[in-house]
């Protein structure tokens, strides 16, 4: 409706002060020029700040360069890559990362899908409570992660007190951050707390995309609610769920801020995710060449995942 109005106004306005045709052609840029004028700044910025450094990193990954020492690059061939792929400590870090990624996503999917199904029952006030649930994911992981260290203090933190209150275990009998056994689960827990809303929100969109008539038909066929869930709801939500999982997989694989402030990799290296190892190699040990090689490996992994991600994304869009 408003569209029609706008068009007529344009016609009116244009007819009042339209410049003569010849002059217009000089002033107006060709469409081709407009495209490049519009796209080029973004591309140039990305080339300068993403691609150029990336190429530089690839080059550095073949050197023994240390950014804090004023000495030449010193090419070492693929030695850095060999080091990385044969380093058992680093292998442990990859395992820690895999544990983190797997469990945080499993929990997010379970809790997120369950919450979405429950919210979709549309009880009174569901929209308000959805917004409340969404809050954690909007906050700064670093700032919130830092505060979780107080919440998880064995003596004074409310978390242990809360658990102790319900289980009867003395509050100071366990430490979530300091213990080798619990720390890997602590980072899973806090990350799940933060990102479950993300999975939930996308699942909710999936549930709402299911046309009503399918359920009506199932109802006519006397399919049980259980059957309806497995053969209608779940398959229809799956593409959405996959999108959420892929995005979260990339995000938790790259996880740095939350864990760096929560446990900074400790105790020992029980929560040392690959990104934390990378940060230590690059900015504490200053092994720039080695760190660059690790960065390239991480990047290739994520790039592959992003590739899949885009394909799924396009599929979801088509539906």
């Amino acid at each position, binding site marked *: 409706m408003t569209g029609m109005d706008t068009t007529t106004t344009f016609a009116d306005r244009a007819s009042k002060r339209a410049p003569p045709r010849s002059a217009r052609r000089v002033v107006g840029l060709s469409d081709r020029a*407009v495209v490049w004028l519009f796209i080029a700044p973004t591309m140039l910025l990305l080339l300068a700040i993403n691609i150029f450094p990336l190429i530089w990193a690839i080059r550095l990954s073949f050197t023994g360069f240390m950014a804090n020492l004023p000495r030449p690059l010193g090419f070492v061939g693929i030695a850095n890559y060999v080091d990385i792929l044969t380093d058992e400590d680093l292998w442990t870090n990859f395992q820690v990362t895999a544990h983190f990624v797997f469990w945080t996503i499993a929990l997010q999917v379970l*809790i997120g899908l369950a919450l979405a199904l429950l919210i979709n029952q549309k009880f009174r006030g569901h929209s308000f409570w959805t917004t409340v649930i969404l809050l954690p994911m909007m906050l700064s992981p670093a700032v919130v992660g830092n505060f979780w260290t107080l919440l998880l203090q064995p003596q004074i933190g409310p978390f242990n007190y809360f658990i102790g209150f319900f289980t009867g275990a003395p509050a100071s009998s366990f430490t979530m951050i300091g213990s080798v056994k619990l720390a890997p689960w602590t980072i899973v827990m806090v990350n799940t707390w933060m990102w479950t809303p993300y999975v939930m929100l996308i699942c909710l969109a999936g549930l709402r995309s299911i046309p009503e008539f399918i359920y009506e038909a199932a109802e006519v066929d006397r399919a049980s609610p259980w059957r309806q869930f497995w053969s209608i709801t779940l398959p229809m939500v799956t593409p959405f769920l996959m999108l959420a999982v892929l995005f979260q997989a990339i995000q938790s694989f790259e996880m740095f801020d939350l864990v760096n402030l929560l446990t900074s990799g400790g105790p020992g290296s029980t929560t040392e995710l690959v990104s934390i190892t990378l940060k230590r190699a690059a900015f504490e040990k200053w092994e720039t060449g080695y760190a660059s090689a690790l960065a390239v490996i991480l990047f290739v992994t994520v790039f592959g995942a992003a590739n899949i991600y885009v394909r799924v994304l396009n599929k979801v869009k088509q539906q």
Partner: protein
Amino acid sequence: MSGARLHRPFSEPSPLLRWLAALVVVTYAIVSILPIVWIGMTAFKSQSDAIAYPPKLLFTPTLEGFVDLFTVQTRQPHDFIAKLPPPANWYEKLARSHDMVIVGRSRVVERFVNSIIIGFGSTILATLLGTLAAYGFSRFKVPLADDLMFFILSTRMMPPIAVAVPIYMMYRYLGLYDTRTGMILLYTAVNVSLAVWLLKGFIDEIPREYEEAALIDGYTRLQAFRKVVLPQAVTGIAATAIFCLIFSWNEYAFDLLLSSSEAQTMPPFIPFIIGEGGQNWPAVAAGTTLFLAPIFVFTIALRKHLLRGITFGAVRK
């Protein structure tokens, strides 16, 4: 949230089921919001209340945390404080009540200002670049458009720590290390991918007929863009801008590694709010509360577009 009424007239959930669902969801919401509530509460606690055992739910609120956040203080003996001229204002009085003397301002204001300048600077730039590029991709046949869009998205997927190494060296070389300009450029580069993807979705939804009508009426492309497309895309541009702002506001890794003082923002600063003998939790909580408050406002403002924003425009309803 829209289209809610369309669902399930046939198998409308029973009142009991609905009630149970509400119970579980509300319980989850309350439990998951507790850590945030605890931050807000700690901001108004005294230091001893903040680290009391068992944790205190009821306490006398005080502004000590905020005073500690904004000032630098030293502990002085009681008789030294007694000899000082009477406190000039309420916060000096508050500090002296627990044997502290205010000796200066802390750096929190600078960090906050940095967060604001870098946040808004990069948001404006990213939204501007993103709008232009999105219009280009939305309306014209760009060669290799799909590959370019994927390239733009993939820059966002790069692990920040992985790109930080070469950017650190580049910034050192160019003198951009620890400068606001450097951080604005970097955040713009990270945000522009989101901006292009989101805005392309928004602009795709504006019917081409409007522009075509304007073009026939004698508008140039640029005029049509400015006077027809932009006004129609205002909501989308605003939503995109808020998403960019939230990212820049929350960002930690790049700022931690690529700044040390001049361009340091709040997230790397907050963990280093330290009192005597460990972290001053009320001050940390006060800083955290002030830092998180704008996000609550943004989240509520963005409610309708949240889904789109977090999925790069892939899911729209």
